[in-house]
């Protein structure tokens, strides 16, 4: 890698105009990597949280393991999974990236789902049971909706975290906005425009998703407006 202080313009709009299609494509890939990780993470976290609440003895191990996964650096997680899954085909790279990304969402999501479900008043649950609700119905129709604001808060944090982490998946040869960041750096003369586009769009994406989820949370749980 040659590194020269150079006279190239710091931000070159014409590059952006010429590459609009590619920018859009990579943004979509960034979104799909993020969305997939959150979807899978949410399903696993709900199952783990329900397990932790129905069998309280499992909570400590679940919390420690997800905490451990969170402590291990993302690059190391990618690197531990990559040789096992492989990074040859797109599918292999995708799985490698998702395993790492999902493992990062677990701590945040499990914690918030458990906190949310624990916060549901016992009287409310008893009233539901008294009205003849089955345990599954209590969970789906009473506890989940009431825990929703806390769960959404967790999803927002997980989303913003994952959007940032997806930029690192470019090291695996995947797309997403990290592609521009890495590409700008790897050009024979560093090309700041590409890097700035990658970083700014990633921040913008995180902010938009955050605001979007905030709005969605308020739509789904209008009674909790004051708390979120």
């Amino acid at each position, binding site marked *: *890698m040659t*590194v*020269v*202080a*150079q006279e190239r313009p*710091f931000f070159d709009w014409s590059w952006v105009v010429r590459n609009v299609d590619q920018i859009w494509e990579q943004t979509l890939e960034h979104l799909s990597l993020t969305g997939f990780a959150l979807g899978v993470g949410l399903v696993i976290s709900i199952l783990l949280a329900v397990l932790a609440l129905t069998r309280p003895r499992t909570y*400590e191990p679940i*919390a*420690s393991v997800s*905490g*451990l996964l*969170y*402590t*291990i*650096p*993302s*690059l*190391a*997680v*990618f*690197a*531990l999974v*990559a*040789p096992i899954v492989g*990074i*040859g085909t797109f599918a292999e790279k995708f799985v490698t990236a998702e395993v790492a990304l999902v493992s990062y969402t677990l*701590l*945040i999501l499990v*914690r918030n789902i458990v906190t949310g479900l624990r916060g549901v008043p016992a009287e409310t649950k008893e009233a539901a049971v008294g009205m003849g609700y089955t345990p599954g119905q209590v969970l789906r129709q009473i506890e989940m909706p009431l825990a929703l604001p806390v769960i959404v808060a967790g999803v927002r*944090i997980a989303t*913003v*975290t994952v*959007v*940032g*982490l997806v*930029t*690192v998946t470019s*090291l*695996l040869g995947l797309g997403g906005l*990290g592609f521009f*960041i*890495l590409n*700008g*750096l790897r050009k024979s003369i*560093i090309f*700041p425009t590409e*890097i*700035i586009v*990658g*970083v700014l769009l*990633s*921040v913008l994406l*995180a*902010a938009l998703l*955050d605001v979007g989820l905030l709005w969605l949370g308020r739509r789904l749980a209008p009674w909790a407006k004051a708390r979120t």
Partner: protein
Amino acid sequence: MIDFLGQVVMWFMEEGRWLGPDGIVPRTVEHLWLAALPMGIAIIVATPVAVWLGHRRIGEFSVNAVVNVGRAIPSFGLLILAAVFFVRAGAGLEFWPAVVTLVALAIPPIFTNAYTAIANAPAGTVEAARGMGLTEREILWRVEVPIGEPVILAGIRISLIQVLATVPLAAVLASGGGLGQYVVRGFAQGTPGRAEVFAGAVLIAILTLVVDWLFTRVERALLPPGVRRLSDTEVRAAAAIS
């Protein structure tokens, strides 16, 4: 699989792997130094300001802004941007871009936790101290800081975890990045580099977990008697939200 693990073992046994110039020992030292220096700077810069603002109970809005903005900026992008600025300024890529990025990354959790710790000291206790005639300085040092210490230390630990996670990314820039060098180099080689990628990842994971564990020991020693240390789960949960 067995074959692959054999390659990993062979990697560890190569000549000069441990003590050579690119060996595990010098790389570990580099890794630790690259984490310790920014942590030191961030603690020195952020803690006094946060403690003072917390004591005066002002600036809560700016604290929230720091957290939100800090979370949205991808550390990988910030690292590369810092590198661009340093190169344009005619400086090298080796060391300082990573240090600047890591300081920026380390400040938000340290700052917000120190602020929250001091600002949320029980109002009754602070009032009682004031009623007993303690000066403002004494209230800060003898009441608010000791009570807030677990939360302040938790903030430092959160930053440490995040800094340790980002140090290896610095290997993308140049020959630095501590143990991350093995992973980045291995990835660049594709399939033949698999063993090096895996070995590097194992080393990074072990180092991070050991440093994190050592920090909990230091924490325990530093805490004043009677003040409860936050559990690992509490700290990591807080890490997730700050």
